[in-house]
């Protein structure tokens, strides 16, 4: 639900474009990492109020696997990858095809693979955002979490709650239906980063 004014709607459209471009780079990277011809696109970007973010697409009380990237540089916030355990296991199996096989989500080596994937794909998006807006953004050390959706989201939203009431959700579609891989990306800018990004995106058009 977009409640911003017309000039901000245009800015949100620019944000979506930046994420779409980032997805192209991410698609290349994922195809290389997974050695598959999968499709990865961004279908939309929306602002969502807090109480909906906590159970956005994933029920609040279901355990999910997440890769959390802290934003570093000229802004604060997080970029979060969310997926069900099944998807995480599949991603892991595919990434490890040439090496030790592990389907246990909480296994240390499997976490390493998924974290790297998050790091690389996250970089694609943040680089694109940074280039398009002129605001330096890069991912920090990725963190892997496996816990109830709302429990983790609450912690991530604490910083944001100090400055706003909404989060940005990037609707991503990763098409690999026969193998059952699917994940979502949540972009949680805080401390005025969103406004600065929108401004930067408009200026740099």
């Amino acid at each position: 639900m977009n409640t911003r004014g017309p000039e901000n709607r245009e800015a949100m459209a620019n944000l979506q474009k930046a994420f779409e471009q980032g997805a192209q780079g991410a698609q290349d990277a994922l195809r290389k990492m997974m050695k598959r011809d999968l499709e990865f696109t961004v279908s939309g970007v929306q602002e969502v109020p807090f109480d909906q973010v906590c159970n956005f697409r994933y029920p609040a009380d279901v355990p999910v696997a997440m890769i959390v990237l802290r934003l570093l540089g000229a802004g604060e916030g997080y970029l979060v990858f969310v997926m069900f355990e099944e998807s995480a296991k599949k991603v892991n199996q595919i990434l490890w095809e040439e090496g030790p096989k592990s389907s246990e989500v909480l296994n240390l080596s499997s976490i390493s693979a998924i974290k790297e994937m998050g790091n690389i794909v996250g970089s694609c998006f943040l680089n694109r955002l940074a280039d398009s807006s002129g605001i330096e953004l890069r991912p920090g050390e990725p963190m892997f979490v496996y816990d109830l959706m709302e429990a983790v989201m609450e912690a991530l939203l604490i910083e944001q709650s100090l400055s706003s009431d909404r989060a940005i959700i990037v609707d991503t579609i990763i098409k690999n239906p026969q193998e059952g891989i699917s994940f979502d990306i949540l972009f949680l800018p805080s401390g005025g980063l969103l406004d600065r990004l929108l401004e930067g995106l408009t200026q740099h058009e």
Partner: protein
Amino acid sequence: MNDLPELKKVNLGIGGIFVTAEPAEVSTVLGSCVSVCLFDESRCIAGINHYMLPHPHEGRQGDVGRFGELSIPELLERMKRQGAMVGQMTAKVFGGARMLAQFSNFSGISEANIEVAMNLLKRYQIRIVATDVGGTRGRKIMFRTDTGRVFVRQVGAKEEL
């Protein structure tokens, strides 16, 4: 454990406060947030909240439910309005996990959330009969408003308190 057919299921979100004299199962998921469950056994009146931060800060006074310092007194007020007596109440406190412990800037908020609950309940002289707080994992709690019992579920574990 029998589930009465008319047992209402309620989901409580961040900032919520729920008080009732009817049988219900109230569920909520807690990370660094804290829930205080109050129960007046003699009148079967129960109440629960779910707050995110300990104290309100400048410019964000509006959301009573979000801040423990405001939410707990409000919870108590609503219990009293339903007819509950402070002297008959017991409390259970849950949550305040240090989620995302790797990101050190989170340190303090979970603990402060727990502290607010302990301090206020002590001030109101409401006896705390159970707690499951801290740690680094989320909790789903299910509060039975007819019995005052709370079930706690964490990823990998299941317990009743």
